[in-house]
């Protein structure tokens, strides 16, 4: 699979996954130390999905994310320092401390936000796709969501609307086997969520979500279809949530052996092997790793040193001020 992927993309996939993994392992530790308020859903084990999909996108393409959204922002080019500051609830964070982990967003990077209402993003992303279609910009729009979201009404309404309007939407289902604590084997009678596309007359693919190359190639095909005006695609990436639903989840609902088996299929380690097999030197990979380590250290320092938001800011940014020229013409 790796052979079909250009070297620069292969390296990018590794770098993105490694940035995500390193960020997540850091925030897990910082959260345990009480540095991060609220709750935390990490993307550990699912990195290949965000990395593979976003590698197939242009910088101006849109994505919308989930409550488990750090990986998507990183894959879309998010800065670790601004992300870390947001998770800390600092003024310098991506959302000035108003969104936190579950609502982190950067529209300038095409990232329309992590979204803590499961399934909601699938409906919103069609709007971004509609804008692209309406203005003829040739952008595409991607919704990331999980297996749980594939049971929401929003998902089904959105799939149908995207198909009817031939929107340049790509629905990326991160099937990580659990909707919070409920296994997919309980919450649906199907094994492949991709089959749900049939009901909407939409093409689909189901791929190994721990193989960044497979995800990238499936996404590339879906993106090409969307850009040529041939409408939406459902891409299912089968993966696994290595950590609990949230940090601190006692995980009484799944056997340790199951988790351990999936840990052996680590997407980051797998891709490192692919790179080495392709003749990319260990030194090159080490250099990427150490760059990321430095970036992360700086990000934590930035978050630590950043000021808290002023309480006087608590009610700013609710409404956009009215433009003065609003009532002309």
């Amino acid at each position, binding site marked *: 699979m790796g052979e079909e992927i250009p070297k620069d993309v292969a390296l990018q996939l590794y770098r993105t996954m490694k940035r995500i993994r390193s960020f997540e392992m850091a925030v897990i530790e910082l959260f345990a130390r009480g540095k991060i308020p609220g709750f935390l859903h990490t993307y550990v084990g699912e990195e290949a999905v965000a990395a593979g999909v976003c590698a197939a996108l242009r910088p101006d393409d849109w994505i*919308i994310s989930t409550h488990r959204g750090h990986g998507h922002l990183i894959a879309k080019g998010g800065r670790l320092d601004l992300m870390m500051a947001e998770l800390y609830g600092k003024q310098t964070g991506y959302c000035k401390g108003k*969104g936190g982990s579950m609502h982190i967003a950067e529209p300038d990077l095409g990232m329309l936000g992590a979204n803590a*209402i499961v399934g909601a993003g699938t*409906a919103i992303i*069609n709007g*971004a796709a509609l804008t692209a279609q309406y203005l003829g910009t040739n952008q595409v729009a991607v919704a990331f969501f999980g297996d749980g979201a594939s049971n929401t009404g929003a998902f089904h309404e959105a799939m149908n609307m995207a198909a009817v309007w031939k929107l340049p939407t790509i629905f990326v289902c991160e099937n990580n086997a659990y909707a919070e604590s409920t296994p997919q084997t309980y919450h649906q009678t199907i094994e492949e969520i991709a089959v749900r596309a049939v009901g909407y007359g939409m093409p689909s693919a189901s791929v190994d979500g721990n193989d960044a190359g497979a995800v990238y190639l499936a996404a590339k095909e879906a993106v090409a279809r969307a850009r040529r005006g041939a409408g939406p695609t459902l891409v299912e990436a089968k993966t696994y949530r290595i950590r609990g639903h949230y940090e601190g989840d006692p995980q009484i609902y799944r056997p340790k052996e199951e988790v351990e088996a999936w840990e052996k299929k680590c997407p980051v380690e797998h891709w490192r092997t692919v790179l080495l097999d392709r003749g990319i030197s260990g030194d090159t990979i080490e250099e990427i790793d150490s760059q990321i380590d430095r970036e992360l250290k700086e990000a934590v320092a930035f978050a630590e040193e950043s000021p808290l938001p002023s309480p006087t800011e608590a009610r700013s940014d609710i409404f*956009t001020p*009215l433009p003065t020229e609003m*009532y002309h013409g």
Partner: protein
Amino acid sequence: MAEMTYREAVKQALREELQNDERVLMLGEDIAEFGGTFKVSLGLLEEFGPNRIRNTPLSETAILGAAVGAAATGLRPIAEIMYSDFFAVALDQVVNQAAKMRYMFGGKLSLPLTIRTAMGGRRSAAAQHSQCLEAWFMHIPGLKLAMPSNAYDAKGLLKSAVRDPNPTIIFENKMLYNEKRDVPEEPFFVPWGEAHIVRKGTDVTVVALSDMVGFALKAADRLADEGISLEVIDPRTLMPLDIDTIVESVQKTGRLVVTHEACVTGGVGAEIGSQVAYRAFDYLAAPVERVGAKDSPIPFAPILEREILPDDQDVVDAAYRVMDYSA
């Protein structure tokens, strides 16, 4: 000036805003060829084409979700929810998404999104097609709400909404679509947050929403014969709410009746009454009266529906109660 119906006034606002800005488009169920259930958009398809007057599948969540996403990425969508009751199946997109997106993102984007919907009863449409649900949305910071009571406001408030960089919801009243009023034919705007003193008076302030403005004016005519003078105020928008104009009026009259077609319990009247009681307590000669629907699902049979919904007689009765009150 031209005499036109409320329906025609809404359509004129839509047409002007579609002409004014290419980014404006409409989406909703049956709004294109069919012209919408209330025929508000009839003819706009021929004028602006199917790309801008977009029929949707019967999917309120998909409609509002697409409108949110389109607004977030550079368009100025006008979404239609056929009956306001249908908001209930898609509330997430209004309450958790549209109202909060700008705030959650630290002010990083604006949502110039307009949602139009038809509200109210008196048509034997029964319990799922007759409600007045404005109070739900007034409770959610991040939304702007208007309830135009006449053709002039229906046009002017809608035009302002489409230009507003924030999510706005306009509750149009089904019973008013055929009502005529003189409306300027040239473009004009009604700013949001400015109450309209519809009738000057001295004894009782009546704050009336939507079609209760008409009933309040009828009550005022009837009571004038009895020597009781009502001042009728139409807030026009609930968010922002021009409470100052209401408070000033109560400081003059000393009595307040708030009336809306929505049921009394948990209604907007409670909020307005509370704000007035707080700011004009020393001026009040009687407790604040609320006139609304009796707390009940809306019945089908006309005789039952009339029993539940408020009208001018209820306003007259409430006015007498505040006039006759003695501590």
